[in-house]
């Protein structure tokens, strides 16, 4: 590859508009896609890379991650979070602003983007807060953050409790065509809750968070979007009822989009078992039946995007008792293989859905061009081997944290290469 030209031979291209994989070769030169098609002729001096039986997909894009910098670099940093993304086949991420201090000013946005441009090998975008310090009282520096490149505003981790403050934020953000992303929760109803409220929380004696806490806030936020004309994006939807609300308002033409996290598709409250804090997140894992409802919503297009809500925490914190341990689960490194194993391999949905919801649509949501395999385009791709396993050991993972139930688990499918422009960001292709 010394001359920057190589051919990825015999790969299977995954694309958003067709469930069929397309057998094709990719001729890459100087970070650009020079030719795409079956049986490309070999060229003298051009390296051949055998990708037989590999799925080659556009680089994935995760619009909801917590990078913990500044403030909690013991959990994650912009560097390690972005490396974790690469390890999972993700070539673009959006950081949440609940850092310490919160990313609530133009200066903070600039600072995060500066660090990212120095340290990250993939594009790292940031959101900004809706309110100063995420306190829900005064509007943050929304126009200034937008000018510096904040791609959404959100108080993620907390809702904006005051309806009037949120209304003003929406009216204000609307003028910049800036998405207001919403962590939906009525704090008074969640209280000290640590898991979904229901039979399981009763049995375990753990204070519960009723689904209504999320559902009421979803309804409120969409109604305020309706009132203001702003674009509201509902983050990490967990409840079937909440999803149905979104669906209904979408049909009415309200500007609402939403996301689902892999863990809310895979897991439910019963997985908490004997107080396993790996399954403690906010919003919490809901009922068994919600898994199927959310998956159905994803297949029907109710969910615009898949986002992991990658939320790193230290081992020490996750070893606290269930009530005291922090909410959150990592996801960047495990999302692709686990989605493959659970849903694509089992033919619950196709590669097209994954590419659409975890690569193309998140980029469109943020007004970016989706990645396509067309001649002349910048290379941005992930090579995935469905026949090779991944073992999510501490050594394998590049995140500083490993608060995931997939720790030390073996999952079918392996991210073997990640290429962005002229840079081969990851290469562990099995020859």
């Amino acid at each position, binding site marked *: 590859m010394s001359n920057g030209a190589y051919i990825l031979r015999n790969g299977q291209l995954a694309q958003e508009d067709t469930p069929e994989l397309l057998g094709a070769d990719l001729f890459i030169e100087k970070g650009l896609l020079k030719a795409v098609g079956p049986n490309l002729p070999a060229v003298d001096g051009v390296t051949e890379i055998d990708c037989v039986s590999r799925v080659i997909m556009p680089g994935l894009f995760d619009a909801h991650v917590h990078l913990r910098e500044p403030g909690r670099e013991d959990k994650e940093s912009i560097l390690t979070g972005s490396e974790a993304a690469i390890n999972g086949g993700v070539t673009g991420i959006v950081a949440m602003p609940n850092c310490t201090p919160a990313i609530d000013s133009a200066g903070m946005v600039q600072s995060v983007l500066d660090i990212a441009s120095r340290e990250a090998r993939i594009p790292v975008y940031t959101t900004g807060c809706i309110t100063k310090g995420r306190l829900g009282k005064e509007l943050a520096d929304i126009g200034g953050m937008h000018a510096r490149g904040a791609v959404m505003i959100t108080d993620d981790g907390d809702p904006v409790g005051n309806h009037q403050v949120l209304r003003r934020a929406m009216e204000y953000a609307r003028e910049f065509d800036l998405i207001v992303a919403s962590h939906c929760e009525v704090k008074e109803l969640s209280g000290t809750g640590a898991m979904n*409220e*229901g*039979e399981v*929380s*009763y*049995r*375990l*004696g*753990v*204070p519960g968070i009723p689904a209504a806490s999320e559902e009421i806030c979803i309804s409120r936020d969409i109604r305020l979007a309706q009132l203001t004309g702003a674009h509201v994006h509902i983050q990490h939807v967990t409840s079937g009822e909440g999803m149905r609300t979104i669906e209904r308002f979408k049909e009415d033409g309200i500007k609402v989009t939403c996301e689902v996290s892999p863990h809310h598709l895979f897991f439910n409250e019963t997985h908490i078992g*004997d*107080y396993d804090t790996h399954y403690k997140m906010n919003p919490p894992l809901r009922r068994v039946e919600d898994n199927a409802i959310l998956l159905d919503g994803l297949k029907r297009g109710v969910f615009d995007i898949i986002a992991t809500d990658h939320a790193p925490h230290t081992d020490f914190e996750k*070893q*606290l*008792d*269930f*009530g*005291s341990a922090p909410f959150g689960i990592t996801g960047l490194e495990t999302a692709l293989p686990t989605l493959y194993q659970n849903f694509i391999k089992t033919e619950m949905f196709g590669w097209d859905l994954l590419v659409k919801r975890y690569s193309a649509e998140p980029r469109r949501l943020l007004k970016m061009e989706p990645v396509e395999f067309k001649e002349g385009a910048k290379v941005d791709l992930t090579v995935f081997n469905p026949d090779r396993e991944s073992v999510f050991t501490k050594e394998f993972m590049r995140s500083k944290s490993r608060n995931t139930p997939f720790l030390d688990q073996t999952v079918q499918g392996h991210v073997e290469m990640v290429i962005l422009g002229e840079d081969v960001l990851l290469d562990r292709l099995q020859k």
Partner: protein
Amino acid sequence: MEPRKDLLDIASLSMEEIEFVLKTAGPFKELFTKSIKKVPPLRGKTVLTLFYEPSTRTRSSFEIAAKRVSADVTNFTVSSSSVVKGESILDTIDTLQAMKCDYVVVRHGAAGVPNMISKHTKASVVNAGDGFHAHPTQALLDAFTLRETFGDLVGKKILIVGDILHSRVARSVSQICEKLGMEIGVLGPGSLIPRARPEFMQKFYTYDEALAWRPDAIYLLRVQLERQNDQFFPSLNEYHKIYGLTDERFRQVEGEGTWVMHPGPVNRGVELGDDVMTYERTLINQQVENGIAVRMAVLYWLQPETN
């Protein structure tokens, strides 16, 4: 019967295990009438009580029980001020491990802490109450008391009154009563009776309706006065009027010969009126006495992995 290391809850116990504890507690209780109340089975063993929540009664009960089976007892008091949200639990366990204790009796305000400790120590862990989750020795001593009173419990009715939502006692007692074949009724403010409750709990709306069900025993739960600020019900006065065993209701209970239980300590004028305290069918003191015998049986039964 498989050897069991820990007693964490009632739900995971087999009937055989419950029967073993109840059967073993009987002879231990007989000792209490003798001048020497001590027997030797745990000689050379160390019992450590680890209480993150203050509780003089339960701790004393365990301490006396441990001493009566000849164990050495150490009380490890963790003042709440030195523990920030349970951060040092695993460190504390390491300390305990180094002390080579054989039994750890744990009380903690958060559900699941005894489960967590049990995974990290070879000592037997006895849950002395964790959050809203479980209080298995309370349930065992109540079952023992009910057996003593009624003999066979199949088909007998117990009415549990009060804060079902936040009560570890209600969870564990209702589970053991169900396992022993009893019918279980619950009564309390709507805000304290979870909708997602076990199916075996029959819910009543008024005291009259509940008494008309003709329970054999009424189990009054302690009202946590500190929860008053959370507004689960309007006032203690109103609680007493609607859900309390008032002197007036007591006369009906007395007429029926219904037995009355309470895990203690009681709030007079809230869960119950004065008259019931002197009622001959009030089992509160027997519960306390039986608590020691049952806890002796539990320590005798459990098998630490420290040997």
